[in-house]
Protein backbone atom coordinates (compact mmCIF):
# COMPACT_ATOMS: atom_id res chain seq x y z
CA UNK A 1 0.00 0.00 0.00
CA UNK A 2 1.46 3.30 -0.98
CA UNK A 3 1.68 6.02 1.64
CA UNK A 4 0.11 8.70 -0.48
CA UNK A 5 -2.88 6.56 -1.34
CA UNK A 6 -6.01 8.61 -1.86
CA UNK A 7 -9.13 6.53 -2.35
CA UNK A 8 -11.13 7.15 -5.48
CA UNK A 9 -14.85 7.11 -4.75
CA UNK A 10 -17.64 6.98 -7.29
CA UNK A 11 -21.04 8.01 -5.97
CA UNK A 12 -24.49 7.64 -7.49
CA UNK A 13 -26.99 10.19 -6.22
CA UNK A 14 -30.65 10.61 -6.86
CA UNK A 15 -31.55 13.94 -8.38
CA UNK A 16 -34.23 14.93 -5.93
CA UNK A 17 -32.81 14.28 -2.49
CA UNK A 18 -29.16 13.37 -2.25
CA UNK A 19 -27.92 15.35 -5.23
CA UNK A 20 -29.85 18.34 -3.93
CA UNK A 21 -28.42 17.67 -0.46
CA UNK A 22 -24.92 17.64 -1.92
CA UNK A 23 -25.70 20.92 -3.68
CA UNK A 24 -26.86 22.30 -0.35
CA UNK A 25 -23.60 21.25 1.28
CA UNK A 26 -21.93 23.31 -1.43
CA UNK A 27 -24.17 26.30 -1.01
CA UNK A 28 -23.44 26.10 2.72
CA UNK A 29 -19.70 25.90 1.95
CA UNK A 30 -19.23 22.74 3.98
CA UNK A 31 -15.81 21.21 3.43
CA UNK A 32 -15.35 17.53 2.67
CA UNK A 33 -12.75 15.33 0.99
CA UNK A 34 -12.31 15.75 -2.75
CA UNK A 35 -12.03 12.00 -3.29
CA UNK A 36 -15.67 11.66 -4.20
CA UNK A 37 -17.10 12.08 -7.70
CA UNK A 38 -20.81 12.15 -8.20
CA UNK A 39 -22.86 10.64 -11.00
CA UNK A 40 -26.37 12.02 -11.06
CA UNK A 41 -29.29 9.69 -11.72
CA UNK A 42 -32.95 10.50 -11.39
CA UNK A 43 -33.65 8.00 -8.62
CA UNK A 44 -31.62 5.60 -6.49
CA UNK A 45 -33.89 2.98 -8.05
CA UNK A 46 -32.07 3.67 -11.32
CA UNK A 47 -28.77 2.47 -9.91
CA UNK A 48 -28.07 -0.87 -11.45
CA UNK A 49 -26.12 -2.79 -8.81
CA UNK A 50 -23.80 -3.87 -11.56
CA UNK A 51 -22.66 -0.23 -11.79
CA UNK A 52 -20.93 -0.93 -8.49
CA UNK A 53 -19.17 -3.93 -9.93
CA UNK A 54 -18.20 -1.90 -12.94
CA UNK A 55 -16.86 0.95 -10.82
CA UNK A 56 -14.70 -1.38 -8.74
CA UNK A 57 -13.42 -3.06 -11.86
CA UNK A 58 -12.58 0.24 -13.52
CA UNK A 59 -10.81 2.10 -10.80
CA UNK A 60 -13.01 2.97 -7.86
CA UNK A 61 -11.74 2.10 -4.41
CA UNK A 62 -15.15 2.70 -2.93
CA UNK A 63 -18.69 3.21 -4.12
CA UNK A 64 -21.52 5.16 -2.55
CA UNK A 65 -25.18 5.11 -3.47
CA UNK A 66 -27.44 7.69 -1.92
CA UNK A 67 -31.14 8.33 -2.26
CA UNK A 68 -34.15 9.82 -0.55
CA UNK A 69 -35.16 8.59 2.87
CA UNK A 70 -37.58 5.69 2.85
CA UNK A 71 -41.04 7.16 2.35
CA UNK A 72 -39.65 10.31 0.75
CA UNK A 73 -38.80 8.96 -2.68
CA UNK A 74 -39.75 11.45 -5.34
CA UNK A 75 -41.04 8.50 -7.31
CA UNK A 76 -42.58 6.96 -4.22
CA UNK A 77 -40.95 3.52 -4.29
CA UNK A 78 -37.64 3.72 -6.10
CA UNK A 79 -35.51 3.66 -2.99
CA UNK A 80 -37.26 0.53 -1.72
CA UNK A 81 -36.05 -1.27 -4.81
CA UNK A 82 -32.61 0.28 -4.49
CA UNK A 83 -32.37 -0.92 -0.90
CA UNK A 84 -33.27 -4.50 -1.80
CA UNK A 85 -31.02 -4.66 -4.86
CA UNK A 86 -28.01 -3.11 -3.24
CA UNK A 87 -28.48 -5.11 -0.06
CA UNK A 88 -28.18 -8.25 -2.11
CA UNK A 89 -25.25 -6.95 -4.10
CA UNK A 90 -23.46 -6.24 -0.86
CA UNK A 91 -23.97 -9.84 0.23
CA UNK A 92 -22.51 -11.04 -3.04
CA UNK A 93 -19.55 -8.67 -3.02
CA UNK A 94 -18.63 -9.49 0.54
CA UNK A 95 -18.87 -13.18 -0.21
CA UNK A 96 -16.34 -12.92 -3.02
CA UNK A 97 -14.08 -10.91 -0.76
CA UNK A 98 -14.79 -7.26 -1.46
CA UNK A 99 -14.32 -5.45 1.86
CA UNK A 100 -17.64 -4.05 3.02
CA UNK A 101 -15.91 -0.75 3.78
CA UNK A 102 -15.75 -0.13 0.05
CA UNK A 103 -19.45 -0.03 -0.34
CA UNK A 104 -21.89 2.33 1.30
CA UNK A 105 -25.45 3.35 0.87
CA UNK A 106 -27.18 6.26 2.53
CA UNK A 107 -30.38 8.24 2.64
CA UNK A 108 -29.69 11.95 2.43
CA UNK A 109 -32.50 14.41 1.92
CA UNK A 110 -32.37 17.70 0.09
CA UNK A 111 -32.09 19.50 3.40
CA UNK A 112 -29.34 17.35 4.88
CA UNK A 113 -26.21 19.07 3.65
CA UNK A 114 -24.50 18.27 6.91
CA UNK A 115 -25.43 14.61 6.64
CA UNK A 116 -24.01 14.51 3.13
CA UNK A 117 -20.72 15.82 4.45
CA UNK A 118 -20.71 13.15 7.18
CA UNK A 119 -21.55 10.41 4.72
CA UNK A 120 -18.72 11.47 2.42
CA UNK A 121 -16.26 11.61 5.29
CA UNK A 122 -17.27 8.15 6.46
CA UNK A 123 -17.12 6.70 2.96
CA UNK A 124 -13.71 8.17 2.25
CA UNK A 125 -12.34 7.19 5.62
CA UNK A 126 -13.55 3.61 5.25
CA UNK A 127 -12.15 3.29 1.75
CA UNK A 128 -8.88 4.71 3.01
CA UNK A 129 -8.72 2.10 5.74
CA UNK A 130 -9.53 -0.65 3.28
CA UNK A 131 -6.59 0.42 1.12
CA UNK A 132 -6.22 0.63 -2.64
CA UNK A 133 -8.52 -1.83 -4.34
CA UNK A 134 -6.76 -4.46 -6.39
CA UNK A 135 -9.22 -7.36 -6.50
CA UNK A 136 -10.60 -7.76 -9.98
CA UNK A 137 -9.44 -4.36 -11.09
CA UNK A 138 -9.06 -4.42 -14.85
CA UNK A 139 -5.79 -2.57 -14.58
CA UNK A 140 -4.12 -5.61 -13.12
CA UNK A 141 -4.21 -7.12 -16.59
CA UNK A 142 -1.04 -6.03 -18.30
CA UNK A 143 -1.39 -7.35 -21.82
Amino acid at each position, binding site marked *: MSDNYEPNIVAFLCNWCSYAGADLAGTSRMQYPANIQIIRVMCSGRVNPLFVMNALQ*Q*GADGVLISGCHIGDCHYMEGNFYARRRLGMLKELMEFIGVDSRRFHMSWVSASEGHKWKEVVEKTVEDAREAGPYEGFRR*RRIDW
Partner: protein
Amino acid sequence: MSAMLLNKEKWPDFIGKLADKKLWVPQADGDAMRFAPIAEGAALPLEFSNTRVPPKQVVFPQTETLYRFQLGQEEMEQPQLEEEILLLGVRPCDARAMEIVEKLFRWDVDDPYYLKRRALTTVVGLACNEPCVNCFCPSVGGGPASTEGLDLLMIDLGEKYLLEPVTAKGVDLLAAVKEFLDEAGTDAVKQKEQVISASMQKIKRSVDTEGIPKGLPGLWEDSLWQRVSASCLGCGTCTYLCPTCHCFDIQDETEGFEARRCRMWDSCMFKEYTLHTSGHNTRPTRRERTRNRINHKYSYYVDKFDVIACVGCGRCINLCPVNIDIIEVLRQVKEAL
Protein backbone atom coordinates in the same frame (compact mmCIF):
# COMPACT_ATOMS: atom_id res chain seq x y z
CA MET B 1 20.97 -38.13 -30.89
CA SER B 2 19.15 -41.38 -30.30
CA ALA B 3 16.71 -42.29 -27.57
CA MET B 4 17.86 -41.69 -24.02
CA LEU B 5 16.75 -42.68 -20.54
CA LEU B 6 16.04 -40.35 -17.64
CA ASN B 7 15.85 -41.75 -14.15
CA LYS B 8 12.80 -40.19 -12.48
CA GLU B 9 14.93 -39.28 -9.48
CA LYS B 10 16.82 -36.90 -11.71
CA TRP B 11 13.65 -35.10 -12.79
CA PRO B 12 14.32 -32.00 -10.66
CA ASP B 13 17.85 -31.69 -12.12
CA PHE B 14 16.44 -32.23 -15.58
CA ILE B 15 13.93 -29.44 -15.45
CA GLY B 16 16.26 -27.25 -13.41
CA LYS B 17 18.59 -27.25 -16.35
CA LEU B 18 15.80 -26.09 -18.64
CA ALA B 19 14.72 -23.17 -16.51
CA ASP B 20 15.88 -20.56 -19.02
CA LYS B 21 12.59 -21.22 -20.74
CA LYS B 22 9.12 -20.70 -19.34
CA LEU B 23 8.02 -24.16 -18.32
CA TRP B 24 4.41 -25.25 -18.59
CA VAL B 25 3.51 -28.60 -17.04
CA PRO B 26 0.19 -30.31 -16.26
CA GLN B 27 -0.76 -29.69 -12.67
CA ALA B 28 -3.51 -30.93 -10.44
CA ASP B 29 -6.48 -28.65 -10.02
CA GLY B 30 -8.87 -30.34 -7.68
CA ASP B 31 -9.98 -33.45 -9.52
CA ALA B 32 -8.86 -32.16 -12.86
CA MET B 33 -5.60 -31.18 -14.50
CA ARG B 34 -4.51 -28.00 -16.13
CA PHE B 35 -1.41 -26.70 -17.81
CA ALA B 36 0.21 -24.04 -15.72
CA PRO B 37 3.66 -22.49 -15.41
CA ILE B 38 5.59 -24.81 -13.14
CA ALA B 39 6.93 -24.09 -9.73
CA GLU B 40 10.61 -24.94 -9.44
CA GLY B 41 11.38 -28.60 -8.93
CA ALA B 42 7.79 -29.81 -9.17
CA ALA B 43 7.34 -33.38 -10.33
CA LEU B 44 5.57 -34.34 -13.50
CA PRO B 45 2.27 -35.88 -12.46
CA LEU B 46 1.60 -39.22 -14.05
CA GLU B 47 -1.78 -40.24 -12.75
CA PHE B 48 -3.74 -38.38 -15.33
CA SER B 49 -5.10 -39.01 -18.74
CA ASN B 50 -5.14 -35.45 -19.96
CA THR B 51 -5.72 -31.83 -18.98
CA ARG B 52 -9.16 -30.36 -19.39
CA VAL B 53 -8.01 -27.34 -21.35
CA PRO B 54 -5.61 -28.49 -24.05
CA PRO B 55 -2.11 -27.01 -24.30
CA LYS B 56 -3.24 -25.03 -27.34
CA GLN B 57 -3.83 -22.27 -24.77
CA VAL B 58 -0.05 -21.81 -24.57
CA VAL B 59 0.59 -21.22 -28.26
CA PHE B 60 -2.84 -19.78 -28.98
CA PRO B 61 -3.82 -17.92 -25.80
CA GLN B 62 -7.50 -17.62 -25.15
CA THR B 63 -7.10 -13.85 -25.12
CA GLU B 64 -4.25 -12.07 -26.78
CA THR B 65 -3.79 -8.30 -26.92
CA LEU B 66 -2.56 -7.25 -30.35
CA TYR B 67 -2.01 -3.61 -29.52
CA ARG B 68 -3.08 -0.77 -27.23
CA PHE B 69 -4.10 2.79 -28.05
CA GLN B 70 -5.86 5.91 -26.78
CA LEU B 71 -9.24 6.92 -28.19
CA GLY B 72 -8.84 9.77 -30.59
CA GLN B 73 -5.07 9.28 -30.95
CA GLU B 74 -3.02 7.64 -33.65
CA GLU B 75 -0.17 5.92 -31.79
CA MET B 76 -0.34 2.33 -30.74
CA GLU B 77 1.79 -0.01 -28.75
CA GLN B 78 2.42 -3.71 -29.36
CA PRO B 79 3.49 -6.40 -26.91
CA GLN B 80 6.88 -7.99 -27.30
CA LEU B 81 6.97 -11.76 -27.84
CA GLU B 82 10.36 -13.11 -26.94
CA GLU B 83 10.12 -15.57 -24.12
CA GLU B 84 10.92 -19.16 -25.00
CA ILE B 85 8.45 -21.72 -23.82
CA LEU B 86 8.87 -25.35 -22.91
CA LEU B 87 5.68 -27.34 -22.86
CA LEU B 88 6.17 -30.51 -20.91
CA GLY B 89 3.87 -33.48 -20.65
CA VAL B 90 1.84 -32.85 -23.77
CA ARG B 91 -0.22 -35.82 -24.87
CA PRO B 92 0.46 -36.96 -28.43
CA CYS B 93 -3.08 -36.13 -29.54
CA ASP B 94 -2.68 -32.49 -28.43
CA ALA B 95 0.66 -32.19 -30.17
CA ARG B 96 -0.85 -33.58 -33.34
CA ALA B 97 -3.59 -31.00 -32.99
CA MET B 98 -1.01 -28.19 -32.97
CA GLU B 99 0.38 -29.55 -36.18
CA ILE B 100 -3.10 -29.68 -37.70
CA VAL B 101 -4.01 -26.18 -36.56
CA GLU B 102 -0.75 -24.79 -37.86
CA LYS B 103 -1.87 -25.67 -41.39
CA LEU B 104 -4.65 -23.18 -40.98
CA PHE B 105 -2.45 -20.47 -39.54
CA ARG B 106 0.02 -20.91 -42.42
CA TRP B 107 -2.66 -20.99 -45.08
CA ASP B 108 -3.49 -17.90 -47.12
CA VAL B 109 -1.54 -15.44 -44.97
CA ASP B 110 0.85 -16.41 -42.22
CA ASP B 111 -0.57 -15.61 -38.81
CA PRO B 112 2.36 -13.88 -37.10
CA TYR B 113 1.04 -14.31 -33.58
CA TYR B 114 0.48 -18.05 -33.72
CA LEU B 115 3.59 -18.81 -35.71
CA LYS B 116 5.81 -16.69 -33.49
CA ARG B 117 4.58 -18.43 -30.35
CA ARG B 118 4.84 -21.81 -32.02
CA ALA B 119 8.43 -21.07 -33.00
CA LEU B 120 9.27 -20.03 -29.46
CA THR B 121 7.81 -23.24 -28.06
CA THR B 122 9.43 -26.61 -27.61
CA VAL B 123 6.90 -29.37 -27.15
CA VAL B 124 7.82 -32.38 -25.05
CA GLY B 125 5.25 -35.13 -25.27
CA LEU B 126 4.27 -37.82 -22.83
CA ALA B 127 2.99 -41.03 -24.37
CA CYS B 128 -0.29 -42.36 -23.03
CA ASN B 129 -0.06 -45.45 -20.85
CA GLU B 130 -3.60 -45.05 -19.58
CA PRO B 131 -5.90 -43.73 -22.28
CA CYS B 132 -9.22 -42.36 -21.13
CA VAL B 133 -12.52 -44.08 -21.65
CA ASN B 134 -13.36 -41.97 -24.68
CA CYS B 135 -10.00 -41.82 -26.39
CA PHE B 136 -10.21 -42.81 -30.04
CA CYS B 137 -7.00 -41.36 -31.49
CA PRO B 138 -6.15 -44.42 -33.61
CA SER B 139 -9.38 -43.95 -35.55
CA VAL B 140 -8.31 -40.52 -36.75
CA GLY B 141 -4.67 -41.10 -37.54
CA GLY B 142 -3.02 -40.77 -34.15
CA GLY B 143 -1.95 -43.10 -31.40
CA PRO B 144 -0.76 -43.18 -27.81
CA ALA B 145 2.81 -42.61 -28.88
CA SER B 146 2.30 -40.53 -31.97
CA THR B 147 5.10 -38.01 -32.49
CA GLU B 148 3.48 -35.55 -34.87
CA GLY B 149 3.86 -32.03 -33.58
CA LEU B 150 6.32 -33.07 -30.89
CA ASP B 151 9.94 -32.10 -30.54
CA LEU B 152 10.58 -34.87 -28.06
CA LEU B 153 8.52 -37.82 -26.83
CA MET B 154 8.74 -39.17 -23.31
CA ILE B 155 7.50 -42.64 -22.49
CA ASP B 156 6.92 -43.58 -18.89
CA LEU B 157 8.67 -46.88 -18.26
CA GLY B 158 8.04 -47.04 -14.54
CA GLU B 159 11.26 -45.87 -12.86
CA LYS B 160 12.53 -44.16 -15.94
CA TYR B 161 11.40 -42.07 -18.83
CA LEU B 162 12.43 -43.00 -22.32
CA LEU B 163 13.18 -39.82 -24.25
CA GLU B 164 12.97 -39.95 -28.02
CA PRO B 165 13.94 -36.83 -29.93
CA VAL B 166 11.68 -36.03 -32.89
CA THR B 167 13.03 -32.74 -34.21
CA ALA B 168 16.24 -30.81 -34.09
CA LYS B 169 14.78 -28.83 -31.19
CA GLY B 170 14.31 -32.11 -29.38
CA VAL B 171 17.88 -33.13 -30.10
CA ASP B 172 19.15 -29.82 -28.81
CA LEU B 173 17.11 -30.19 -25.69
CA LEU B 174 18.53 -33.61 -24.98
CA ALA B 175 22.00 -32.29 -25.59
CA ALA B 176 21.45 -29.59 -23.03
CA VAL B 177 20.65 -32.11 -20.32
CA LYS B 178 22.93 -34.88 -21.50
CA GLU B 179 24.59 -35.15 -18.10
CA PHE B 180 21.43 -36.56 -16.52
CA LEU B 181 20.69 -39.09 -19.26
CA ASP B 182 21.69 -42.64 -20.02
CA GLU B 183 21.72 -44.32 -23.40
CA ALA B 184 18.58 -46.31 -24.01
CA GLY B 185 19.18 -49.95 -24.84
CA THR B 186 17.05 -52.39 -26.78
CA ASP B 187 15.36 -53.38 -23.54
CA ALA B 188 13.96 -49.94 -23.16
CA VAL B 189 12.70 -49.93 -26.72
CA LYS B 190 11.10 -53.32 -26.17
CA GLN B 191 9.53 -52.12 -22.97
CA LYS B 192 8.16 -49.10 -24.79
CA GLU B 193 6.56 -51.33 -27.41
CA GLN B 194 4.88 -53.35 -24.68
CA VAL B 195 3.60 -50.28 -22.91
CA ILE B 196 2.21 -48.78 -26.08
CA SER B 197 0.64 -51.99 -27.27
CA ALA B 198 -0.99 -52.43 -23.84
CA SER B 199 -2.22 -48.89 -24.13
CA MET B 200 -3.69 -49.58 -27.56
CA GLN B 201 -5.58 -52.49 -26.04
CA LYS B 202 -7.18 -50.14 -23.56
CA ILE B 203 -8.64 -47.92 -26.26
CA LYS B 204 -12.15 -49.33 -26.57
CA ARG B 205 -13.96 -46.76 -28.61
CA SER B 206 -13.52 -46.11 -32.28
CA VAL B 207 -14.93 -44.37 -35.31
CA ASP B 208 -15.06 -45.64 -38.85
CA THR B 209 -14.31 -42.48 -40.81
CA GLU B 210 -14.40 -44.20 -44.17
CA GLY B 211 -16.52 -42.14 -46.56
CA ILE B 212 -17.45 -39.54 -44.00
CA PRO B 213 -15.49 -36.55 -45.39
CA LYS B 214 -16.93 -37.04 -48.85
CA GLY B 215 -20.40 -38.01 -47.64
CA LEU B 216 -21.09 -35.37 -45.03
CA PRO B 217 -22.13 -32.53 -47.37
CA GLY B 218 -24.77 -34.82 -48.83
CA LEU B 219 -26.41 -35.10 -45.41
CA TRP B 220 -27.01 -31.36 -45.21
CA GLU B 221 -30.74 -31.62 -44.62
CA ASP B 222 -30.71 -34.99 -42.88
CA SER B 223 -32.89 -35.35 -39.83
CA LEU B 224 -29.93 -36.57 -37.81
CA TRP B 225 -28.77 -33.02 -37.16
CA GLN B 226 -32.00 -32.08 -35.46
CA ARG B 227 -31.83 -35.28 -33.44
CA VAL B 228 -28.27 -34.93 -32.23
CA SER B 229 -28.49 -31.22 -31.51
CA ALA B 230 -31.82 -31.16 -29.68
CA SER B 231 -30.19 -31.44 -26.28
CA CYS B 232 -27.23 -29.14 -27.08
CA LEU B 233 -26.92 -26.24 -24.63
CA GLY B 234 -25.06 -24.08 -27.10
CA CYS B 235 -22.12 -23.70 -24.75
CA GLY B 236 -18.50 -23.56 -25.75
CA THR B 237 -17.26 -26.58 -23.83
CA CYS B 238 -16.70 -28.86 -26.83
CA THR B 239 -14.97 -26.21 -28.90
CA TYR B 240 -12.97 -24.44 -26.21
CA LEU B 241 -11.65 -27.73 -24.93
CA CYS B 242 -11.01 -29.06 -28.38
CA PRO B 243 -7.29 -29.04 -29.24
CA THR B 244 -7.98 -28.40 -32.92
CA CYS B 245 -10.64 -25.71 -32.62
CA HIS B 246 -8.96 -22.47 -33.51
CA CYS B 247 -11.66 -19.89 -34.23
CA PHE B 248 -11.12 -16.46 -32.85
CA ASP B 249 -12.89 -13.15 -32.62
CA ILE B 250 -11.33 -9.69 -32.62
CA GLN B 251 -12.64 -6.99 -30.31
CA ASP B 252 -11.66 -3.46 -29.42
CA GLU B 253 -12.10 -3.14 -25.70
CA THR B 254 -12.10 0.20 -23.97
CA GLU B 255 -11.71 1.43 -20.46
CA GLY B 256 -12.45 5.10 -20.23
CA PHE B 257 -10.62 6.60 -23.15
CA GLU B 258 -8.06 3.81 -23.36
CA ALA B 259 -8.49 0.89 -25.67
CA ARG B 260 -6.87 -2.33 -26.72
CA ARG B 261 -7.44 -4.57 -29.68
CA CYS B 262 -7.61 -8.20 -28.66
CA ARG B 263 -8.31 -11.47 -30.23
CA MET B 264 -9.90 -14.24 -28.26
CA TRP B 265 -11.23 -17.72 -28.79
CA ASP B 266 -14.61 -17.90 -30.33
CA SER B 267 -16.91 -20.84 -30.69
CA CYS B 268 -19.07 -21.84 -33.62
CA MET B 269 -21.53 -23.20 -31.05
CA PHE B 270 -22.35 -19.69 -29.92
CA LYS B 271 -25.31 -17.88 -31.36
CA GLU B 272 -23.26 -14.71 -31.93
CA TYR B 273 -20.72 -16.55 -34.05
CA THR B 274 -22.66 -16.08 -37.24
CA LEU B 275 -24.92 -13.26 -36.13
CA HIS B 276 -24.82 -10.43 -38.62
CA THR B 277 -25.17 -6.79 -37.71
CA SER B 278 -28.49 -6.81 -39.52
CA GLY B 279 -29.82 -9.27 -36.98
CA HIS B 280 -29.82 -12.09 -39.49
CA ASN B 281 -28.15 -15.27 -38.36
CA THR B 282 -26.91 -17.66 -41.01
CA ARG B 283 -26.87 -20.47 -38.48
CA PRO B 284 -30.01 -19.67 -36.57
CA THR B 285 -30.26 -22.78 -34.41
CA ARG B 286 -28.14 -25.32 -32.63
CA ARG B 287 -28.88 -27.73 -35.47
CA GLU B 288 -26.90 -25.69 -37.98
CA ARG B 289 -24.17 -25.04 -35.44
CA THR B 290 -23.77 -28.69 -34.55
CA ARG B 291 -23.81 -29.62 -38.22
CA ASN B 292 -21.09 -27.07 -38.84
CA ARG B 293 -18.90 -28.35 -36.04
CA ILE B 294 -18.95 -31.90 -37.38
CA ASN B 295 -18.63 -30.81 -41.01
CA HIS B 296 -15.75 -28.53 -40.25
CA LYS B 297 -13.77 -31.21 -38.51
CA TYR B 298 -14.63 -34.16 -40.73
CA SER B 299 -15.21 -32.61 -44.13
CA TYR B 300 -14.19 -28.99 -44.76
CA TYR B 301 -10.80 -29.34 -43.13
CA VAL B 302 -10.17 -32.56 -45.00
CA ASP B 303 -11.02 -30.82 -48.27
CA LYS B 304 -8.63 -27.99 -47.62
CA PHE B 305 -5.77 -29.62 -45.73
CA ASP B 306 -6.30 -33.31 -46.31
CA VAL B 307 -6.51 -34.11 -42.63
CA ILE B 308 -9.37 -34.64 -40.20
CA ALA B 309 -9.46 -31.79 -37.69
CA CYS B 310 -10.14 -34.15 -34.82
CA VAL B 311 -7.45 -35.97 -32.92
CA GLY B 312 -9.71 -38.30 -30.94
CA CYS B 313 -8.79 -36.93 -27.52
CA GLY B 314 -12.32 -37.49 -26.20
CA ARG B 315 -12.57 -34.18 -24.36
CA CYS B 316 -15.78 -33.08 -26.03
CA ILE B 317 -17.34 -36.43 -25.10
CA ASN B 318 -16.08 -36.46 -21.54
CA LEU B 319 -17.10 -32.93 -20.79
CA CYS B 320 -20.27 -32.36 -22.76
CA PRO B 321 -22.87 -31.69 -20.06
CA VAL B 322 -25.61 -33.36 -22.06
CA ASN B 323 -23.80 -36.37 -23.49
CA ILE B 324 -23.53 -35.22 -27.08
CA ASP B 325 -21.00 -37.86 -28.11
CA ILE B 326 -19.09 -37.24 -31.32
CA ILE B 327 -18.50 -40.96 -31.74
CA GLU B 328 -22.24 -41.56 -31.62
CA VAL B 329 -22.87 -38.62 -33.96
CA LEU B 330 -20.38 -40.03 -36.45
CA ARG B 331 -21.99 -43.44 -36.12
CA GLN B 332 -25.30 -41.89 -37.08
CA VAL B 333 -23.63 -40.02 -39.93
CA LYS B 334 -22.21 -43.25 -41.18
CA GLU B 335 -25.59 -44.89 -40.89
CA ALA B 336 -27.22 -42.11 -42.86
CA LEU B 337 -24.70 -42.23 -45.67
